[in-house]
Protein backbone atom coordinates (compact mmCIF):
# COMPACT_ATOMS: atom_id res chain seq x y z
CA UNK A 1 0.00 0.00 0.00
CA UNK A 2 1.16 3.46 -0.75
CA UNK A 3 -0.59 6.00 1.40
CA UNK A 4 -0.56 9.64 0.66
CA UNK A 5 -1.76 13.06 1.69
CA UNK A 6 -3.62 14.21 4.73
CA UNK A 7 -7.19 15.29 4.19
CA UNK A 8 -7.82 18.30 1.98
CA UNK A 9 -8.81 21.56 3.59
CA UNK A 10 -10.56 24.24 1.62
CA UNK A 11 -10.38 27.96 2.33
CA UNK A 12 -13.97 29.17 2.59
CA UNK A 13 -15.69 32.54 2.75
CA UNK A 14 -17.11 31.97 6.24
CA UNK A 15 -15.89 32.74 9.73
CA UNK A 16 -16.23 30.91 13.04
CA UNK A 17 -16.29 27.37 11.65
CA UNK A 18 -13.38 26.16 13.73
CA UNK A 19 -15.26 24.39 16.48
CA UNK A 20 -17.58 22.52 14.21
CA UNK A 21 -14.69 21.44 11.99
CA UNK A 22 -13.00 19.80 14.98
CA UNK A 23 -16.03 17.55 15.41
CA UNK A 24 -14.80 15.47 12.46
CA UNK A 25 -11.20 15.17 13.62
CA UNK A 26 -11.56 11.49 14.44
CA UNK A 27 -13.09 10.42 11.13
CA UNK A 28 -10.89 7.84 9.45
CA UNK A 29 -10.77 5.28 6.68
CA UNK A 30 -10.75 1.64 7.73
CA UNK A 31 -8.86 -0.70 5.44
CA UNK A 32 -9.38 -4.43 5.96
CA UNK A 33 -10.24 -3.89 9.61
CA UNK A 34 -7.40 -1.48 10.38
CA UNK A 35 -8.03 2.22 11.01
CA UNK A 36 -5.61 4.23 8.85
CA UNK A 37 -4.53 7.84 9.29
CA UNK A 38 -4.20 8.67 5.62
CA UNK A 39 -7.11 10.31 3.87
CA UNK A 40 -6.00 9.11 0.48
CA UNK A 41 -5.15 5.51 -0.31
CA UNK A 42 -3.63 4.13 -3.46
CA UNK A 43 -4.18 0.40 -3.84
CA UNK A 44 -3.09 -2.15 -6.35
CA UNK A 45 -6.02 -2.81 -8.72
CA UNK A 46 -6.33 -6.44 -7.68
CA UNK A 47 -6.14 -5.53 -3.99
CA UNK A 48 -8.78 -2.87 -4.45
CA UNK A 49 -11.34 -5.34 -5.75
CA UNK A 50 -10.81 -7.52 -2.68
CA UNK A 51 -10.40 -4.80 -0.04
CA UNK A 52 -12.97 -4.29 2.68
CA UNK A 53 -13.10 -0.54 3.16
CA UNK A 54 -15.21 1.46 5.58
CA UNK A 55 -15.40 4.86 7.22
CA UNK A 56 -14.93 5.07 10.95
CA UNK A 57 -17.13 7.83 12.37
CA UNK A 58 -16.40 8.83 15.90
CA UNK A 59 -18.87 11.67 16.02
CA UNK A 60 -20.55 13.23 19.03
CA UNK A 61 -23.73 14.97 17.85
CA UNK A 62 -24.00 16.88 21.14
CA UNK A 63 -20.60 18.45 20.41
CA UNK A 64 -21.78 19.37 16.92
CA UNK A 65 -24.95 20.91 18.37
CA UNK A 66 -22.88 22.95 20.84
CA UNK A 67 -20.46 24.05 18.11
CA UNK A 68 -23.21 25.22 15.77
CA UNK A 69 -24.99 26.95 18.64
CA UNK A 70 -21.85 29.04 19.18
CA UNK A 71 -22.19 30.06 15.53
CA UNK A 72 -25.79 31.02 16.24
CA UNK A 73 -27.00 28.35 13.84
CA UNK A 74 -30.03 26.43 15.17
CA UNK A 75 -29.09 22.76 15.62
CA UNK A 76 -32.42 21.77 14.11
CA UNK A 77 -31.15 23.04 10.76
CA UNK A 78 -27.96 21.02 10.77
CA UNK A 79 -27.39 17.48 9.50
CA UNK A 80 -24.67 14.90 9.29
CA UNK A 81 -24.03 13.02 6.07
CA UNK A 82 -21.72 10.66 4.20
CA UNK A 83 -21.68 10.95 0.41
CA UNK A 84 -19.59 8.92 -2.03
CA UNK A 85 -18.90 8.92 -5.75
CA UNK A 86 -17.08 6.63 -8.17
CA UNK A 87 -14.27 8.09 -10.24
CA UNK A 88 -15.39 6.83 -13.68
CA UNK A 89 -19.09 7.21 -14.38
CA UNK A 90 -20.35 10.06 -12.18
CA UNK A 91 -22.19 7.63 -9.93
CA UNK A 92 -22.88 9.14 -6.50
CA UNK A 93 -24.68 7.83 -3.47
CA UNK A 94 -25.72 9.21 -0.10
CA UNK A 95 -24.64 6.56 2.39
CA UNK A 96 -26.02 8.31 5.43
CA UNK A 97 -27.92 11.52 6.07
CA UNK A 98 -29.83 12.61 9.18
CA UNK A 99 -30.48 15.73 11.25
CA UNK A 100 -27.97 15.92 14.10
CA UNK A 101 -30.79 16.16 16.63
CA UNK A 102 -32.13 12.75 15.74
CA UNK A 103 -29.02 11.20 14.24
CA UNK A 104 -27.81 7.98 15.62
CA UNK A 105 -24.53 8.14 13.76
CA UNK A 106 -23.15 4.65 13.16
CA UNK A 107 -19.57 4.05 14.24
CA UNK A 108 -18.75 2.33 10.97
CA UNK A 109 -20.18 2.87 7.50
CA UNK A 110 -19.20 0.09 5.10
CA UNK A 111 -18.25 1.11 1.58
CA UNK A 112 -19.79 -1.91 -0.06
CA UNK A 113 -19.26 -2.65 -3.73
CA UNK A 114 -22.18 -5.06 -3.75
CA UNK A 115 -24.66 -2.44 -2.57
CA UNK A 116 -23.20 0.41 -4.63
CA UNK A 117 -21.29 -1.28 -7.46
CA UNK A 118 -20.78 1.74 -9.72
CA UNK A 119 -19.33 3.69 -6.80
CA UNK A 120 -17.27 1.21 -4.79
CA UNK A 121 -16.74 -1.28 -7.61
CA UNK A 122 -15.22 1.39 -9.86
CA UNK A 123 -11.88 0.14 -11.17
CA UNK A 124 -10.40 3.64 -10.84
CA UNK A 125 -11.55 4.05 -7.23
CA UNK A 126 -13.88 6.39 -5.41
CA UNK A 127 -14.18 9.50 -3.22
CA UNK A 128 -16.03 9.87 0.06
CA UNK A 129 -17.08 13.08 1.81
CA UNK A 130 -18.16 13.08 5.46
CA UNK A 131 -19.83 16.36 6.30
CA UNK A 132 -21.85 18.48 8.67
CA UNK A 133 -24.27 20.36 6.50
CA UNK A 134 -27.10 22.90 6.58
CA UNK A 135 -30.39 21.14 5.91
CA UNK A 136 -32.52 24.29 5.51
CA UNK A 137 -32.02 27.86 4.34
CA UNK A 138 -31.27 30.33 7.15
CA UNK A 139 -31.68 34.08 7.42
CA UNK A 140 -28.62 35.47 5.57
CA UNK A 141 -25.94 36.96 7.86
CA UNK A 142 -22.49 38.25 6.90
CA UNK A 143 -19.75 35.59 6.72
CA UNK A 144 -22.17 32.92 7.93
CA UNK A 145 -23.36 30.02 5.80
CA UNK A 146 -27.09 30.22 5.17
CA UNK A 147 -27.98 28.18 2.09
CA UNK A 148 -29.30 24.65 2.48
CA UNK A 149 -26.69 22.20 1.24
CA UNK A 150 -23.73 24.29 2.45
CA UNK A 151 -21.30 22.17 4.44
CA UNK A 152 -20.04 23.55 7.74
CA UNK A 153 -17.31 20.96 8.11
CA UNK A 154 -16.14 18.16 5.86
CA UNK A 155 -13.52 15.49 5.52
CA UNK A 156 -12.68 14.14 2.08
CA UNK A 157 -11.29 10.69 1.49
CA UNK A 158 -10.06 9.11 -1.70
CA UNK A 159 -9.30 5.52 -2.62
CA UNK A 160 -7.62 5.03 -6.01
CA UNK A 161 -6.26 2.14 -8.00
CA UNK A 162 -2.52 2.46 -8.35
CA UNK A 163 -1.11 3.14 -11.75
CA UNK A 164 2.40 2.28 -12.66
CA UNK A 165 4.28 5.54 -12.90
CA UNK A 166 4.94 4.74 -16.54
CA UNK A 167 1.24 4.41 -17.22
CA UNK A 168 1.65 7.97 -18.40
CA UNK A 169 3.75 6.49 -21.17
CA UNK A 170 0.84 5.43 -23.27
CA UNK A 171 1.98 6.31 -26.77
CA UNK A 172 -0.35 7.49 -29.47
CA UNK A 173 -0.12 6.56 -33.14
CA UNK A 174 1.37 9.37 -35.18
CA UNK A 175 -0.82 9.04 -38.25
CA UNK A 176 -0.60 11.33 -41.27
CA UNK A 177 -3.59 13.20 -39.91
CA UNK A 178 -2.06 13.62 -36.45
CA UNK A 179 1.22 14.72 -38.03
CA UNK A 180 -0.59 17.40 -40.03
CA UNK A 181 -2.52 18.57 -36.97
CA UNK A 182 0.69 18.81 -34.98
CA UNK A 183 2.45 20.50 -37.90
CA UNK A 184 5.28 17.99 -37.87
CA UNK A 185 7.43 17.22 -40.91
CA UNK A 186 6.86 14.03 -42.87
CA UNK A 187 9.21 11.35 -41.61
CA UNK A 188 8.85 12.28 -37.94
CA UNK A 189 9.43 9.25 -35.74
CA UNK A 190 8.39 10.53 -32.30
CA UNK A 191 6.98 13.64 -30.73
CA UNK A 192 6.19 14.59 -27.15
CA UNK A 193 3.22 16.95 -27.00
CA UNK A 194 2.63 18.88 -23.81
CA UNK A 195 -1.12 19.35 -23.65
CA UNK A 196 -1.49 21.57 -20.58
CA UNK A 197 -0.22 24.99 -19.55
CA UNK A 198 1.45 23.61 -16.46
CA UNK A 199 2.86 20.10 -16.10
CA UNK A 200 3.57 20.81 -12.43
CA UNK A 201 -0.10 21.43 -11.74
CA UNK A 202 -1.46 18.66 -13.95
CA UNK A 203 -3.39 15.99 -12.04
CA UNK A 204 -1.89 13.22 -14.14
CA UNK A 205 0.74 12.54 -16.76
CA UNK A 206 -2.01 11.32 -19.03
CA UNK A 207 -3.63 14.73 -19.04
CA UNK A 208 -0.38 16.60 -19.41
CA UNK A 209 1.41 14.71 -22.14
CA UNK A 210 0.92 12.74 -25.33
CA UNK A 211 3.85 10.83 -26.75
CA UNK A 212 3.46 10.04 -30.43
CA UNK A 213 5.22 7.28 -32.34
CA UNK A 214 5.08 6.95 -36.13
CA UNK A 215 1.93 4.88 -36.73
CA UNK A 216 3.51 2.23 -38.97
CA UNK A 217 6.43 1.77 -36.57
CA UNK A 218 4.12 1.67 -33.57
CA UNK A 219 1.91 -0.94 -35.26
CA UNK A 220 4.93 -3.15 -35.88
CA UNK A 221 6.12 -2.71 -32.30
CA UNK A 222 2.66 -3.45 -30.99
CA UNK A 223 2.32 -6.56 -33.14
CA UNK A 224 5.69 -7.85 -31.96
CA UNK A 225 5.65 -6.67 -28.37
CA UNK A 226 7.77 -9.47 -27.02
CA UNK A 227 10.42 -9.32 -29.74
CA UNK A 228 13.88 -8.12 -28.69
CA UNK A 229 13.94 -5.26 -31.16
CA UNK A 230 10.52 -4.04 -30.09
CA UNK A 231 11.55 -4.13 -26.44
CA UNK A 232 14.73 -2.24 -27.22
CA UNK A 233 12.79 0.45 -29.06
CA UNK A 234 10.30 0.68 -26.21
CA UNK A 235 13.08 1.30 -23.71
CA UNK A 236 14.56 4.01 -25.94
CA UNK A 237 11.19 5.68 -26.31
CA UNK A 238 10.53 5.54 -22.56
CA UNK A 239 13.86 7.27 -21.96
CA UNK A 240 13.03 9.91 -24.57
CA UNK A 241 9.63 10.41 -22.93
CA UNK A 242 11.10 10.71 -19.43
CA UNK A 243 13.76 13.17 -20.55
CA UNK A 244 11.18 15.23 -22.40
CA UNK A 245 8.88 15.43 -19.38
CA UNK A 246 11.75 16.21 -17.01
CA UNK A 247 12.93 18.93 -19.41
CA UNK A 248 9.48 20.47 -19.42
CA UNK A 249 9.29 20.34 -15.62
CA UNK A 250 12.76 21.91 -15.35
CA UNK A 251 11.73 24.76 -17.69
CA UNK A 252 8.64 25.36 -15.62
CA UNK A 253 10.60 25.38 -12.36
CA UNK A 254 13.00 27.92 -13.84
CA UNK A 255 10.17 30.10 -15.13
CA UNK A 256 8.67 30.13 -11.64
CA UNK A 257 12.10 30.82 -10.12
CA UNK A 258 11.78 27.80 -7.88
CA UNK A 259 15.14 26.24 -8.71
CA UNK A 260 16.76 24.82 -5.58
CA UNK A 261 13.52 24.02 -3.81
CA UNK A 262 12.73 20.86 -5.78
CA UNK A 263 13.30 18.57 -2.80
CA UNK A 264 10.30 20.04 -1.02
CA UNK A 265 8.22 20.44 -4.19
CA UNK A 266 7.85 16.79 -5.06
CA UNK A 267 6.51 13.80 -3.25
CA UNK A 268 4.68 10.67 -4.24
CA UNK A 269 1.28 12.30 -3.83
CA UNK A 270 1.02 13.18 -7.49
CA UNK A 271 1.93 11.32 -10.66
CA UNK A 272 4.37 14.02 -11.73
CA UNK A 273 5.92 14.06 -8.25
CA UNK A 274 6.13 10.31 -8.23
CA UNK A 275 7.78 10.30 -11.66
CA UNK A 276 10.33 12.90 -10.56
CA UNK A 277 11.10 10.82 -7.46
CA UNK A 278 11.57 7.68 -9.53
CA UNK A 279 13.78 9.33 -12.15
CA UNK A 280 15.82 10.92 -9.33
CA UNK A 281 16.22 7.53 -7.71
CA UNK A 282 17.31 5.99 -11.04
CA UNK A 283 19.92 8.73 -11.39
CA UNK A 284 20.93 8.30 -7.74
CA UNK A 285 20.18 11.96 -7.10
CA UNK A 286 17.80 14.06 -5.04
CA UNK A 287 15.13 15.92 -7.05
CA UNK A 288 17.19 19.12 -6.70
CA UNK A 289 20.27 17.26 -7.91
CA UNK A 290 18.33 15.84 -10.83
CA UNK A 291 17.16 19.23 -12.05
CA UNK A 292 20.62 20.74 -11.58
CA UNK A 293 21.94 18.01 -13.81
CA UNK A 294 19.11 18.52 -16.30
CA UNK A 295 20.27 22.12 -16.67
CA UNK A 296 24.00 21.42 -16.69
CA UNK A 297 24.43 18.06 -18.37
CA UNK A 298 21.22 16.51 -19.68
CA UNK A 299 23.16 13.79 -21.45
CA UNK A 300 24.25 12.46 -18.06
CA UNK A 301 20.61 12.05 -17.01
CA UNK A 302 20.02 10.09 -20.20
CA UNK A 303 22.98 7.87 -19.34
CA UNK A 304 21.62 7.28 -15.84
CA UNK A 305 18.25 6.28 -17.25
CA UNK A 306 19.85 4.00 -19.82
CA UNK A 307 21.69 2.28 -17.01
CA UNK A 308 18.65 2.04 -14.76
CA UNK A 309 16.42 0.66 -17.50
CA UNK A 310 19.15 -1.67 -18.79
CA UNK A 311 18.99 -0.20 -22.27
CA UNK A 312 22.27 -1.77 -23.51
CA UNK A 313 21.03 -5.24 -22.57
CA UNK A 314 17.96 -4.82 -24.79
CA UNK A 315 19.99 -3.29 -27.63
CA UNK A 316 22.53 -6.14 -27.53
CA UNK A 317 19.76 -8.72 -27.50
CA UNK A 318 18.06 -7.05 -30.45
CA UNK A 319 21.25 -6.86 -32.48
CA UNK A 320 22.22 -10.42 -31.66
CA UNK A 321 18.96 -11.57 -33.23
CA UNK A 322 19.42 -9.59 -36.44
CA UNK A 323 21.62 -12.19 -38.04
CA UNK A 324 19.54 -15.17 -36.88
Amino acid at each position, binding site marked *: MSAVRSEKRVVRPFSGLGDVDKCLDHTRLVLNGEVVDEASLIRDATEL*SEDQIAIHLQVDTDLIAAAVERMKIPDVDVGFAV*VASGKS*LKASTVLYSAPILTASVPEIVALSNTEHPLVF*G*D*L*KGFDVRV*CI*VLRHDLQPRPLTPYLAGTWLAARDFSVSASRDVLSGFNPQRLTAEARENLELPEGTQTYLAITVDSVLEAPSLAEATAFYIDAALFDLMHANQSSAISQSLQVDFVIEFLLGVMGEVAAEIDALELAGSEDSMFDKNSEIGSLVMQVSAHADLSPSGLFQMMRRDRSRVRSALQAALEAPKYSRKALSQVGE
Partner: protein
Amino acid sequence: MMHWVLTAHDASRLVEDLRAGRPREDLRRVAGNGADSRAGTEEFMKTFRESVDDVRSNSSRAGSGDTKAAKSANERKDHIEGQLSCVLFQGLKDLDAAVLTDPGFWRYLAAWEMFDFVQWRDGENCKLVSFGAGSHSPTWDCVPKRMFVRARIAFEADGDGNWRDLAGIAGTDVWRSHVLRVKTGNSPALSAALLEAWDDQVIRTKEVRDVAKRIKRLRSNMVFELMDGEQIDAILSRQIEAARGET
Protein backbone atom coordinates in the same frame (compact mmCIF):
# COMPACT_ATOMS: atom_id res chain seq x y z
CA MET B 1 -17.05 -10.86 -15.75
CA MET B 2 -15.37 -11.66 -19.08
CA HIS B 3 -15.81 -8.94 -21.65
CA TRP B 4 -14.35 -7.54 -24.85
CA VAL B 5 -11.87 -4.68 -24.75
CA LEU B 6 -9.76 -2.73 -27.21
CA THR B 7 -6.50 -1.04 -26.31
CA ALA B 8 -6.15 2.64 -27.26
CA HIS B 9 -3.66 1.61 -29.93
CA ASP B 10 -5.91 -1.02 -31.44
CA ALA B 11 -8.96 1.23 -31.39
CA SER B 12 -6.97 3.89 -33.19
CA ARG B 13 -5.76 1.39 -35.79
CA LEU B 14 -9.21 -0.04 -36.30
CA VAL B 15 -10.69 3.40 -36.90
CA GLU B 16 -7.96 4.19 -39.40
CA ASP B 17 -8.51 0.89 -41.25
CA LEU B 18 -12.26 1.30 -41.37
CA ARG B 19 -12.01 4.87 -42.58
CA ALA B 20 -9.62 3.77 -45.31
CA GLY B 21 -12.04 1.02 -46.37
CA ARG B 22 -9.65 -1.73 -45.36
CA PRO B 23 -11.01 -5.02 -43.96
CA ARG B 24 -11.75 -4.99 -40.24
CA GLU B 25 -9.06 -6.97 -38.44
CA ASP B 26 -10.26 -8.54 -35.21
CA LEU B 27 -8.15 -6.72 -32.63
CA ARG B 28 -10.48 -7.39 -29.70
CA ARG B 29 -9.05 -8.85 -26.52
CA VAL B 30 -10.74 -10.58 -23.63
CA ALA B 31 -10.59 -9.02 -20.17
CA GLY B 32 -11.98 -10.02 -16.79
CA ASN B 33 -12.98 -13.44 -15.57
CA GLY B 34 -16.04 -15.31 -14.39
CA ALA B 35 -19.32 -15.15 -16.29
CA ASP B 36 -18.89 -14.42 -19.99
CA SER B 37 -20.73 -11.28 -21.09
CA ARG B 38 -19.39 -11.18 -24.65
CA ALA B 39 -22.14 -12.98 -26.57
CA GLY B 40 -24.85 -11.11 -24.70
CA THR B 41 -23.22 -7.76 -25.40
CA GLU B 42 -22.78 -8.58 -29.08
CA GLU B 43 -26.43 -9.63 -29.32
CA PHE B 44 -27.58 -6.46 -27.62
CA MET B 45 -25.44 -4.27 -29.86
CA LYS B 46 -27.18 -5.77 -32.90
CA THR B 47 -30.47 -4.63 -31.38
CA PHE B 48 -28.93 -1.25 -30.68
CA ARG B 49 -27.91 -0.81 -34.31
CA GLU B 50 -31.46 -1.64 -35.40
CA SER B 51 -32.72 0.99 -32.96
CA VAL B 52 -30.33 3.50 -34.52
CA ASP B 53 -31.95 2.92 -37.90
CA ASP B 54 -35.47 3.13 -36.44
CA VAL B 55 -34.84 6.27 -34.42
CA ARG B 56 -33.04 8.00 -37.26
CA SER B 57 -35.73 7.23 -39.81
CA ASN B 58 -38.52 8.25 -37.38
CA SER B 59 -36.67 11.45 -36.70
CA SER B 60 -36.32 12.21 -40.42
CA ARG B 61 -40.05 11.62 -40.95
CA ALA B 62 -41.00 13.76 -37.98
CA GLY B 63 -38.82 16.60 -39.24
CA SER B 64 -37.47 19.28 -37.03
CA GLY B 65 -40.63 20.52 -35.35
CA ASP B 66 -41.26 17.63 -32.99
CA THR B 67 -39.48 18.89 -29.91
CA LYS B 68 -38.91 22.28 -28.39
CA ALA B 69 -35.19 22.21 -28.66
CA ALA B 70 -34.61 20.16 -31.79
CA LYS B 71 -33.94 22.98 -34.19
CA SER B 72 -30.55 22.81 -35.81
CA ALA B 73 -29.11 19.71 -37.45
CA ASN B 74 -26.73 19.29 -34.55
CA GLU B 75 -29.56 19.56 -32.06
CA ARG B 76 -31.55 16.98 -33.99
CA LYS B 77 -28.54 14.69 -33.87
CA ASP B 78 -28.17 15.31 -30.17
CA HIS B 79 -31.83 14.56 -29.60
CA ILE B 80 -31.35 11.23 -31.41
CA GLU B 81 -28.23 10.57 -29.34
CA GLY B 82 -30.30 11.24 -26.23
CA GLN B 83 -33.06 8.85 -27.27
CA LEU B 84 -30.56 6.14 -28.16
CA SER B 85 -28.66 6.69 -24.93
CA CYS B 86 -31.71 5.23 -23.13
CA VAL B 87 -31.55 2.12 -25.33
CA LEU B 88 -27.82 1.76 -24.67
CA PHE B 89 -28.22 2.28 -20.93
CA GLN B 90 -31.01 -0.26 -20.60
CA GLY B 91 -29.02 -2.86 -22.49
CA LEU B 92 -25.80 -2.41 -20.56
CA LYS B 93 -26.81 -1.31 -17.07
CA ASP B 94 -26.76 -4.81 -15.61
CA LEU B 95 -23.16 -5.52 -16.56
CA ASP B 96 -20.68 -5.65 -13.69
CA ALA B 97 -19.06 -2.41 -12.57
CA ALA B 98 -15.72 -3.99 -13.49
CA VAL B 99 -16.91 -4.03 -17.11
CA LEU B 100 -18.59 -0.63 -17.13
CA THR B 101 -15.60 1.10 -15.56
CA ASP B 102 -13.08 -0.59 -17.86
CA PRO B 103 -11.83 1.98 -20.42
CA GLY B 104 -11.17 -0.81 -22.94
CA PHE B 105 -14.84 -1.81 -22.91
CA TRP B 106 -15.95 1.66 -24.09
CA ARG B 107 -13.32 1.61 -26.83
CA TYR B 108 -14.60 -1.79 -27.96
CA LEU B 109 -18.17 -0.50 -28.11
CA ALA B 110 -17.20 2.68 -29.94
CA ALA B 111 -14.77 1.31 -32.51
CA TRP B 112 -16.02 -2.25 -33.00
CA GLU B 113 -19.77 -2.11 -32.41
CA MET B 114 -20.72 1.51 -33.04
CA PHE B 115 -18.26 2.73 -35.69
CA ASP B 116 -20.92 3.91 -38.16
CA PHE B 117 -22.99 5.56 -35.46
CA VAL B 118 -19.99 7.43 -34.04
CA GLN B 119 -19.02 8.59 -37.54
CA TRP B 120 -22.57 9.80 -38.14
CA ARG B 121 -22.85 11.50 -34.76
CA ASP B 122 -19.48 13.21 -34.46
CA GLY B 123 -18.64 13.49 -38.17
CA GLU B 124 -16.66 11.35 -40.57
CA ASN B 125 -13.44 13.09 -39.65
CA CYS B 126 -14.12 13.22 -35.94
CA LYS B 127 -11.17 12.90 -33.62
CA LEU B 128 -10.16 9.58 -32.14
CA VAL B 129 -11.43 10.69 -28.73
CA SER B 130 -14.96 10.04 -30.03
CA PHE B 131 -13.90 6.37 -30.10
CA GLY B 132 -12.25 6.50 -26.67
CA ALA B 133 -8.82 6.48 -28.33
CA GLY B 134 -6.33 9.27 -28.94
CA SER B 135 -6.16 9.93 -25.23
CA HIS B 136 -4.96 7.83 -22.33
CA SER B 137 -8.41 6.84 -21.23
CA PRO B 138 -11.83 7.59 -22.70
CA THR B 139 -12.93 11.14 -22.05
CA TRP B 140 -16.48 12.50 -22.15
CA ASP B 141 -16.05 12.76 -25.91
CA CYS B 142 -16.19 8.95 -26.14
CA VAL B 143 -19.63 8.46 -27.68
CA PRO B 144 -20.93 5.29 -25.94
CA LYS B 145 -19.52 6.32 -22.57
CA ARG B 146 -21.12 9.74 -22.65
CA MET B 147 -24.41 8.21 -23.86
CA PHE B 148 -24.48 5.65 -21.07
CA VAL B 149 -23.79 8.24 -18.39
CA ARG B 150 -26.26 10.69 -19.91
CA ALA B 151 -29.07 8.14 -19.63
CA ARG B 152 -27.89 6.99 -16.21
CA ILE B 153 -28.08 10.55 -14.87
CA ALA B 154 -31.58 10.95 -16.35
CA PHE B 155 -32.65 7.60 -14.89
CA GLU B 156 -31.30 8.47 -11.44
CA ALA B 157 -33.07 11.82 -11.57
CA ASP B 158 -36.46 10.51 -12.64
CA GLY B 159 -36.42 6.76 -13.15
CA ASP B 160 -40.13 6.41 -12.44
CA GLY B 161 -41.16 9.29 -14.66
CA ASN B 162 -39.93 11.06 -17.72
CA TRP B 163 -36.29 10.00 -17.69
CA ARG B 164 -36.34 9.26 -21.40
CA ASP B 165 -37.55 12.78 -22.16
CA LEU B 166 -34.87 14.14 -19.89
CA ALA B 167 -32.12 12.13 -21.62
CA GLY B 168 -33.53 13.27 -24.96
CA ILE B 169 -33.17 16.96 -24.21
CA ALA B 170 -31.02 18.26 -27.03
CA GLY B 171 -28.09 20.37 -25.95
CA THR B 172 -24.67 19.03 -26.80
CA ASP B 173 -22.92 21.85 -25.00
CA VAL B 174 -25.13 21.69 -21.91
CA TRP B 175 -24.70 17.95 -21.56
CA ARG B 176 -21.01 17.75 -22.27
CA SER B 177 -19.65 21.01 -20.89
CA HIS B 178 -22.04 21.69 -18.04
CA VAL B 179 -23.08 18.24 -16.84
CA LEU B 180 -20.66 15.47 -17.84
CA ARG B 181 -17.32 17.27 -17.64
CA VAL B 182 -18.07 18.89 -14.28
CA LYS B 183 -19.23 17.74 -10.87
CA THR B 184 -22.78 18.90 -11.62
CA GLY B 185 -23.22 15.49 -13.25
CA ASN B 186 -22.70 13.85 -9.86
CA SER B 187 -26.04 15.31 -8.79
CA PRO B 188 -28.76 13.92 -11.06
CA ALA B 189 -31.35 16.26 -9.50
CA LEU B 190 -29.33 19.38 -10.24
CA SER B 191 -28.41 18.14 -13.72
CA ALA B 192 -32.09 17.52 -14.45
CA ALA B 193 -33.12 20.94 -13.15
CA LEU B 194 -30.47 22.65 -15.30
CA LEU B 195 -31.41 20.68 -18.40
CA GLU B 196 -35.14 21.23 -17.96
CA ALA B 197 -34.65 24.95 -17.39
CA TRP B 198 -32.62 25.02 -20.59
CA ASP B 199 -35.17 23.00 -22.54
CA ASP B 200 -38.05 25.16 -21.27
CA GLN B 201 -36.00 28.22 -22.23
CA VAL B 202 -36.06 29.48 -18.64
CA ILE B 203 -32.31 29.79 -19.17
CA ARG B 204 -31.51 31.54 -22.40
CA THR B 205 -28.69 30.38 -24.64
CA LYS B 206 -26.48 33.34 -23.78
CA GLU B 207 -26.99 32.72 -20.05
CA VAL B 208 -26.38 29.00 -19.80
CA ARG B 209 -22.60 29.20 -19.62
CA ASP B 210 -22.68 31.82 -16.87
CA VAL B 211 -25.29 29.91 -14.86
CA ALA B 212 -23.30 26.69 -15.20
CA LYS B 213 -20.13 28.47 -14.10
CA ARG B 214 -21.89 29.81 -11.01
CA ILE B 215 -23.12 26.33 -10.13
CA LYS B 216 -19.61 24.99 -10.54
CA ARG B 217 -18.31 27.63 -8.13
CA LEU B 218 -20.99 26.81 -5.57
CA ARG B 219 -19.98 23.17 -5.67
CA SER B 220 -16.90 23.86 -3.55
CA ASN B 221 -19.13 24.95 -0.66
CA MET B 222 -22.21 22.83 -1.19
CA VAL B 223 -23.16 19.17 -1.36
CA PHE B 224 -25.80 19.07 -4.08
CA GLU B 225 -26.46 15.38 -3.55
CA LEU B 226 -28.01 16.20 -0.16
CA MET B 227 -30.45 18.82 -1.43
CA ASP B 228 -34.12 18.13 -2.16
CA GLY B 229 -35.92 19.16 -5.34
CA GLU B 230 -37.22 22.40 -3.87
CA GLN B 231 -33.77 23.42 -2.64
CA ILE B 232 -32.24 22.55 -6.02
CA ASP B 233 -34.85 24.63 -7.84
CA ALA B 234 -34.25 27.54 -5.46
CA ILE B 235 -30.49 27.49 -5.90
CA LEU B 236 -30.81 27.28 -9.68
CA SER B 237 -33.25 30.20 -9.75
CA ARG B 238 -30.83 32.27 -7.69
CA GLN B 239 -28.01 31.55 -10.14
CA ILE B 240 -30.19 32.48 -13.11
CA GLU B 241 -31.17 35.75 -11.43
CA ALA B 242 -27.55 36.47 -10.53
CA ALA B 243 -26.41 35.77 -14.10
CA ARG B 244 -29.08 38.13 -15.43
CA GLY B 245 -28.11 40.77 -12.91
CA GLU B 246 -24.65 40.85 -14.38
CA THR B 247 -25.68 41.15 -18.01
